[in-house]
């Protein structure tokens, strides 16, 4: 019978956890710039390819 107390308490607790995460995210300035990160995320792959390209000749020498 008292399981409902437990369930509701757990659900509220989880909700509060997410709420705290949201507040922390706002505080860290995550929402201040909502455009640049969307562009930035596309760059990482590109730089990796670049560094791979740079490494290629060196590997050939080693072989």
């Amino acid at each position, binding site marked *: 019978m008292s399981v409902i107390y437990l369930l509701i308490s757990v659900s509220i607790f989880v909700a509060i956890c997410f709420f705290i995460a949201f507040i922390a995210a706002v505080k860290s300035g995550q929402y201040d*710039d909502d455009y640049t990160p969307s562009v930035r995320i596309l760059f990482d792959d590109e730089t990796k390819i670049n560094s791979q390209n740079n490494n290629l000749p060196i590997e050939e020498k080693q072989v």
Partner: protein
Amino acid sequence: MREQSCFHCGLSIEQNEEIDFDDKKFCCTGCKTVYEIFSSNNLTSYYDFEKSPGATPQDIKGKYDFLENEAILSKILEFQEGNTSIVSLNIPHIHCSSCIWILENLNRLQPGISISQVNFPEKRVRITFNSEVVSLKEIAYLLSSIGYEPYISLENYGTEKAKIDRSLTYKLGVAFFCFGNIMLLSFPEYFEMKEFWLDSYKPFFRLLIFLLALPSFLYSASGYYISAYHSIRTRMLNIDIPIALGIIVMFIRSTYDMVMDHGPGFFDSLASLVFFMLLGKMFQIKTYSFLSFERDFKSYFPIAVTKINKDASEENVAIYDVLKGDRLLIRNQELIPVDGILISESAEIDYSFVTGEAVPITKKSGDKVFAGGKQIGKVIEMEVLHSVSQSYLTQLWSNEIFQKKVDQKHKTITDAISRYFTPILLLIAFAGFGYWIFIDANTAFNVFTAVLIVACPCALALTAPFTFGNILRILGKKKFYLKNAIVIEQLAKVNTIVFDKTGTITTNKKSNIIYEGNFISDVDILVIKNVLRGSNHPLSRMLYDFLPEGKRAAIENFQEITGKGLLASVDGKEIKIGSGQFVDDIVPDGSEIEKTALHIKIGEVYLGKYTFQNQYREGLEKLFADLSKDYQIKVLSGDNDGERSNLEAILPKGTELIFNQKPEQKLEYIKKLQEKGQNVMMVGDGLNDAGALAQSNVGISISENVNVFSPACDAILDAAEFSRLNYFLKLSHKAIFIIKMSFGLSLLYNVIGLAFAVTGNLLPLVAAIIMPLSTITIVSFVTFMSNYFSSRNLE
């Protein structure tokens, strides 16, 4: 003819001037050098994201030497401890993904930089660097050398970092959290299940709902209580009074119901109300972080200037430390920060920041030079007459209009309605209470609170934010950027429009060039064009672009005499181009002095002159004709009345034209109009209009490049959209019309709700349905209507 564009900057390449490098074509060595820097550092991916993303680097030798000065440096740096320094620089050229990429890879170009992060909407880059390896000055030069010149102005000097106000986001988050959870926990109540199993948990559910409602009631809604309190104190009934009253009554009544076990109360409606209203507030805020509406002279003036000491040594001093009698050194493209007397032989000063006039003015030794002008050409020396704050232009900012912080210049339309709404609401509530008190005291109390709860003008309060928020976004897409939503209401109230002349209704990009004089042969035109090629004077460039393309010819003995003209010889014939006095000893008479002209003499024959006239913006005539139907139009100009006859021909009859206006006189003129009861809109562009823009009810600044330049104002209009001004004004009228319609709609909901309330039948479930329903109808109605009107041709 092949049209070619530069691989780096995308500008078209002039014939025979292209530079081939690495199989790519460049328009100048500057662009080529940037490409070389990138390719030698393995950064050519810069060109992969966007086609020709670059800018030609400008020659800025010596411009950032003041960054060596420790005192100035400490004012600019955001953070400094040990070796680690952080600086946040404004770079106007940031415009595409390539820009973000290259600026975030600065560490590959310059050792000592550890992190650089771009904030694209604000056009800023935040650089963390090791101050022992690299100095800020070196970083500034590095950025400039790759075409990303940072913009460091007096504004950066010593201002505390403004804290970002995120409280609305927090409040909205709290309100949403409470709203969602309360709704979930209220479900059993909605279905009124008479099951024993659920009934036994009722007190537990209700306690949780009560606890969840507390943060929403105490924190999220706190703004409304404060605003209501202020409005009572100033005796201006605004919309926040019935809202605050409704929320408080709702909370008390619900708590009472819950404690007495009458029912679940209205906590769900309370949470949804607070959430929706905060959402509306959020929607109304549309910021253009890359624009600034608060700029004053500080944004244009440099932080430091080069002072020449008595012993001829040079020193960088902060602008505020410049004293009367100091000698200053002003380089090419530098701004003159104070009034003074020119010591050097001559100077070419561009006052386009101040007046909007693009053609530079020539000054001779001993002439007075005013703050705000930009030196073009050689390095000049000047002696200071007034310190910064006492200079001719900057004195404008000591006017009281810049001192008082006007939060609300006038009552908003919502507040105007609530002046009637609040008393009527209270009247109904007391009438209901008075009627029921004789029948049943308990019902009387219920009716009284129910009226205040259901009439809580949630939909009414949401109308204006959603309409204005939407219109604000629509206008932003059409390149008309408003400071905030109140400006739309003010636009709709305008009945007088005052225009500045130079730079506002004229464009400073193009000039109308007319030749007057003897017959001039094609061969001569070609010779003139070739002579002009070597000159960098703006007038020469304009005439050069105006003359038809032709073959190149050899020019000998080319000489540019600053402030006078050009001297050269072609095929043994001497050619003179320049001022009348220089070319042929023409002493300008009264009418000549007002016109800008280049005189031509080939050999011993005086041919004639090219006159530069102000080019009015496209569509000006039609715009003025349209505007004059509904508005009084006036034109204020700082210039003399040389253009009067031209203007009178274009403008509708009866337009008032006033010339020779000083910045303060413009401000006074607007003030006088307002004292006569007019609602004045000022359209201007330069710093000399700043006073008038601030004084007017709506100040609109016209800008050729919105990122770089605009004085403090209420709205910034892209110069290319100038001819649509009438459309924007019409749209603001439509916005008010939409709001009035939706006020009617929301009052209808209030009447239905009141019918329930007065009869004593308001169940929590009814309230929980009516409130979100009215909100959703209103929001979709105003969004649909504003999109409909904006897409229609309103001419």
